[in-house]
């Protein structure tokens, strides 16, 4: 059970001395709340900072995101053009092409940079989809008793017993080839895990006395789910999101590798597939084969590291030594 205390009290860390007084008191409640929010973000950050892995992950992510955003600047808008490819087929690395060229003579480095956009987009959107569905279903299933909760959980269970990759492959086959297909296939197949986690957390939260208190205050279902359950499952959801992103990126690569991606778009998985189709494995063209794989691994690792760090910060119990 995770995350009961967002503003985690840290034994030893500086006492969260509420030094609000004087000028702050004069401010409106809204401003105060904002200041408070800022301070808890700052505290979060302070604790996050102490996780070296998380910092590495975050740094990596920022770097990759920047690179992805700046792709047109870094590589020129024509980097993906086959007719205007600057190099020969499968050239090995050189000063001009630091990572060599692909079979069309395009710079692998440039493609890698462009591919980051797709991989990140897919990862983020699929994770968002997954987490959004999972959170809603989880909270609703955890909050309500009775048959609809049972039905929801049955549906979730049903999705859970589907081997994810198999279902994703089937879905990707059913729909037409596009980025959205991949996103939906990933989102639709991975949400049940989130739903289960969220439901478990919801159940835990719902058993807390403050829920009883809210009900006794006259709070309805919506109030309890939105004001109490949601904020309490959010940290879990946040951590889960980062983890889902990394697995979504891997799944995207997998689908692309199986030839189920959108072939008109350059993604890392697609690059691997292209490399394989081009025979780069046999030819030993490591510069074509290695970078997409490493890129996938790095991004997935970065997200995983961030996710774990967030998880640890939000769930102080995990971090404590005996």
């Amino acid at each position: 059970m995770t995350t009961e205390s967002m503003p985690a009290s840290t034994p030893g860390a500086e006492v969260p001395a509420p030094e609000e007084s004087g000028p702050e008191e004069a401010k409106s409640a809204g401003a105060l709340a904002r200041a408070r929010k800022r301070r808890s973000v700052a505290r979060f950050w302070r604790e996050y900072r102490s996780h070296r892995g998380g910092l590495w992950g975050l740094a990596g992510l920022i770097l990759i995101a920047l690179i992805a955003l700046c792709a047109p600047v870094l590589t020129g808008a024509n980097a993906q053009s086959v007719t205007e490819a600057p190099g020969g087929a499968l050239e090995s690395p050189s000063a001009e092409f630091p990572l060599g060229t692909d079979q069309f003579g395009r710079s692998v480095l440039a493609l890698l940079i462009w591919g980051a956009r797709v991989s990140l987009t897919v990862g983020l959107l699929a994770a968002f989809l997954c987490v959004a569905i999972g959170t809603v279903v989880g909270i609703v299933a955890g909050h309500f008793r009775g048959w609809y909760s049972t039905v929801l959980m049955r549906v979730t269970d049903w999705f859970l017993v589907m081997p994810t990759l198999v279902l994703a492959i089937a879905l990707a086959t059913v729909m037409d080839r596009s980025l959205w297909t991949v996103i939906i296939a990933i989102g639709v197949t991975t949400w049940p895990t989130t739903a289960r986690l969220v439901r478990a957390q919801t159940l835990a939260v719902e058993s807390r006395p403050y829920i009883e208190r809210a009900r006794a205050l006259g709070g309805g279902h919506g109030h309890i789910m939105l004001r109490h359950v949601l904020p309490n499952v959010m940290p879990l959801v946040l951590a889960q999101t980062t983890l889902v992103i990394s697995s979504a990126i891997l799944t995207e690569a997998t689908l692309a590798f199986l030839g189920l991606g959108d072939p008109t778009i350059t993604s890392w998985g697609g690059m691997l597939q292209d490399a394989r189709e081009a025979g780069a494995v046999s030819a030993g063209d490591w510069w074509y084969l290695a970078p997409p794989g490493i890129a996938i691994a790095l991004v997935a690792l970065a997200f995983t590291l961030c996710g774990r760090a967030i998880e640890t910060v939000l769930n102080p119990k995990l971090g404590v030594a005996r």
Partner: protein
Amino acid sequence: MSTTSIRKTPLLEVRDLTVTYAGGARAVRGVNLEVDAGRKLGIAGESGCGKSTLALALLRLLPAGTKVTGEILLNGEDVLAMKWGQVRAVRWAGASIVFQGAMHSLNAVHRIGDQIAEPIVLHRKTTQAAARKRAGELLEQVGLPAARADAYPHELSGGQRQRVMIAMALACDPGLIIADEPTTALDVMIQAQILRLIEQLVSEQDLGLIMISHDLAVLSDTCDRLAVMYAGRVVEQGPAAEVYERAHHPYSKALSGAFPRIGDPASRFAPRGLPGDPPDPSALPAGCTFHPRCTVALDSCTTQDPELRVAGPGREAACVLVGPDGVSAPQGAEEARSTS
């Protein structure tokens, strides 16, 4: 262990024990205690004052990184100076602990019989079967049928679990039992059952007992002597009933006043408490740690931290207002100054 030797050296003697947690929290600050065999010492104090820390320190059970100084002489041997092997040998066989919250102190996935038998096998080097038989006997001793040895902790009620903890503590016939809030969170009736059981066992087996609780009333009823702790210090010590009835230290006073005596019209519609918040062990106030909440604090209290001083026969208190004759020094501030 001959009776004569016990007379000479106390069963447990704690000298100037200080515990500092890795985070810098000074949870125990220079505590001196003594327990003789067959005697019962109560330690009272509000939440966070370091009672459990003290108990854990006795068997060196504190987490790694915690600094412990002073001496803990168990049967004359300093636990803090022992090698780990020796410490392990002393644990449970020399002194055992009944923890606060039996639900979490029992391992949920093992049968209680096995959990009781475990230290027997370990320390008495008996066979498993013999240990299990002994576990059954112990359960009967605490009023549970031996057949319950097959139960898992969650199948027992809170009171039953606490009995199991007690049976377990008795497993290796230790000289000393430390009971850390053995009845908190229990119902009045169950609490009475457990206390009676402990008392009975201690007197039957001539054990030393340290009982920790925040319920001064219970302690005064059960124990011979009472030590009141505040912010890691013992602030008052003495015969249990006396400390409860006529506390010297303002904190002990407030604490004992918090327990209403039914039938006493003075407490009818007049609940009494202690204003203010307990101190933070990692940022203790200067001077007497109690002075921010003390109704009779003097100016000097903000700077001067009084040591325990004799306050009557067998009694000690750490307050500038306490005189050696046991009577509280006069309440007036001027007079207090003049005496000091």
